[in-house]
């Protein structure tokens, strides 16, 4: 497949090679076209970009540090491991990069009501935060299973003034929250802005969210050059919808740096209880774009499984599907148990509690480091902090830690 310069993706209609596009009900099309036009304008608007940059530095604490994890490196016994500390961004994850961008765009478009879906609750919290900051109304859709397992984030959203709408359908997780957010949007599209939290959904979301998240990779590239005098040998990030991974990968896309996206292997891909969409899925259309999805032979979407609510999703951003097909990035999976082990390893080695999502990336990074010489450099996106996951981790402690 010859798709030309990857950094110039998508095309004008939102296609990343055979993926992406706009597969939505007609009721939403005019709103998406309006959004596309608005985003194309602010993308080139110096004032808008400066306002976002100012918020990044004065409000969300950017740039986030790049930390050399010396003790974790020693423990893994090979290549150097660096952590891009998105867990230190305001609200505790990379999600704020995107919600500040989209809320600023919503204001620019004159829309004063935000809605969002959330899985782990990090995107919901980040959207509620942006809504509070801009004085906007906010409604967050969240599966009842996730409401249960990410309870602290539900309270955070409510304290920030958002209304959390529990969604009890299907597996009652991220996919169902997104279904419900889209249904609500169909009925409220005239005055409501939908803040999609990943590089998924119909065009222009995959492009827009990537652009707002690329700050991760832009900073990391500069920081690793300063620290090591060269580019890393490997980038590692977890992939649910794929926004933190795309944010890290995209600025390196013409550098020839190896990249690994880590999906949730759940209880093991062979058990069928996993969220390894790129690893075990096939091409389909879900939530407005064409991409890999987990589905049965008749095109019905399967339920995903992961200990991590943020990765528990049977779809993935279309640009990742293209990266997979072209071999730009490799996609692997890490099981629930491996991710839990990595959580404990980082906590003990570096004094950092990672999010369960990011723990998947850490588990893979430690495996990769062990197999590589000490001169090599691995850069991991530590996409969020683990405070929200304490109850899950404690439930699954199983005597790992005395």
């Amino acid at each position, binding site marked *: 497949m010859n798709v030309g310069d990857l950094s110039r993706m998508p095309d004008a209609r939102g296609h990343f090679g055979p993926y992406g596009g706009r*597969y*939505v*009900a007609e*009721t939403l*099309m005019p709103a998406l076209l309006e959004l596309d036009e608005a985003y194309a304008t602010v993308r080139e608007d110096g004032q808008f970009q400066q306002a976002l940059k100012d918020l990044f530095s004065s409000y969300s604490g950017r740039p986030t540090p790049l930390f050399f994890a010396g003790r974790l490196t020693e423990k893994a016994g090979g290549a150097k491991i660096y952590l891009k500390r998105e867990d230190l961004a305001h609200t505790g994850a990379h999600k704020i990069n995107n919600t500040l961008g989209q809320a600023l765009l919503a204001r620019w478009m004159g829309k004063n009501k935000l809605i969002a879906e959330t899985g782990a609750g990090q995107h919901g919290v980040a959207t509620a935060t942006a809504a509070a900051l801009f004085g906007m109304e906010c409604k967050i859709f969240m599966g009842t299973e996730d409401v249960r397992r990410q309870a602290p984030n539900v309270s955070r959203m409510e304290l920030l003034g958002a209304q959390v709408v529990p969604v009890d359908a299907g597996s009652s997780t991220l996919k169902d929250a997104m279904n419900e957010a889209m249904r609500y949007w169909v009925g409220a599209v005239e005055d409501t802005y939908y803040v999609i939290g990943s590089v998924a959904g119909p065009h222009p979301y995959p492009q827009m969210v990537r652009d707002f998240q690329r700050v991760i990779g832009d900073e990391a590239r500069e920081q690793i050059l300063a620290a090591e005098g060269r580019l890393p040998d490997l980038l590692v990030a977890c992939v649910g919808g794929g926004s933190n991974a795309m944010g890290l990968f995209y600025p390196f896309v013409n550098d020839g740096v190896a990249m690994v996206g880590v999906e949730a292997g759940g209880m093991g891909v062979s058990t069928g209880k996993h969220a390894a969409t790129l690893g075990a899925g096939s091409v389909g*259309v879900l*939530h407005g774009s064409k991409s890999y999805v987990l589905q049965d032979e008749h*095109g*019905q979407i399967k339920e995903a499984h992961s200990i991590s609510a943020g990765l528990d999703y049977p779809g993935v951003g279309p640009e990742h599907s293209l990266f997979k097909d072209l071999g730009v990035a490799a996609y692997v999976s890490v099981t629930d148990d491996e991710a839990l082990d990595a959580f404990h390893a980082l906590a003990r080695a570096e004094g950092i509690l990672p999010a369960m999502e990011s723990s998947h990336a850490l588990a893979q990074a430690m495996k990769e480091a062990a197999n590589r010489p000490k001169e090599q450099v691995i850069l991991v996106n530590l996409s969020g902090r683990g405070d929200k996951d304490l109850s899950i981790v404690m439930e699954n402690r199983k005597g790992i830690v005395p």
Partner: protein
Amino acid sequence: MSRISHTFEKLSARGEKALVAFLSAGDPDRERSMAAIRALVEGGADVLELGVPFSDPTADGPVIQRASQRALSAGMTLPGVLSMAGEIRAEFPDLPVVIFSYYNPILSMDGRFHAEAVAAGADGLLVVDLPVEESDELTGSWDEGLDFIRLVAPTTPKERMKAICEKASGFVYLVSMTGVTGSEGLKQEVAATCARAVKSVTGLPLCVGFGVSTPEQAGLLSRAADGVVVGSAFCKMLEQGAAPDELRDFAASLKQGMKESGK
């Protein structure tokens, strides 16, 4: 001339409007779904929309969501829906049958949909989440045999309406309100205004649907259109265990409402 066009011509000659009945195929199982379809046709349904149940129906309200779920639980698939279409074709040679689906089940048939749908005797296809920007990948290689019904929404600007209608065949489906299927709060005047706008850009028959649940509503809406689509109301009756006779009588009352309104 397609069975769909022929039906609208016939109705128009009689001064009648079409009752387009939607059911989620296979709800609650194949046998009872077939019985419900027979009852609706007996009651006066002029066009049948066979809904393909989908796991993630993002344009549907709770009633059709549950109907889809029941059909899926009973094992319904898109090939299963086409097989139902074949059975309906054999029983009702003149009844236009439109397959109403989300895109993913069709995509999963890997290009075989058109030939198999035509072979089964289906007359048209409507894909909820395949807007005019993306539909060439499906219909680009189609030859005759299947009408492609397109949706127009109250949010659709006039220029876009024109572009959509130019690529439509069979009839045009106007979504009566900004919302999912089965929503409440249908506003006749708004829908009628939209209907007039669509009529001004196309000569195709126009059917209006979403949120129509009473003979009065069907009657009022039918004044501005060539047909009215009713779906959630039938699905709700099935959910509540209505017998075929009740479905037949309700279909007849909708049809009667449209006839009286046209007088």
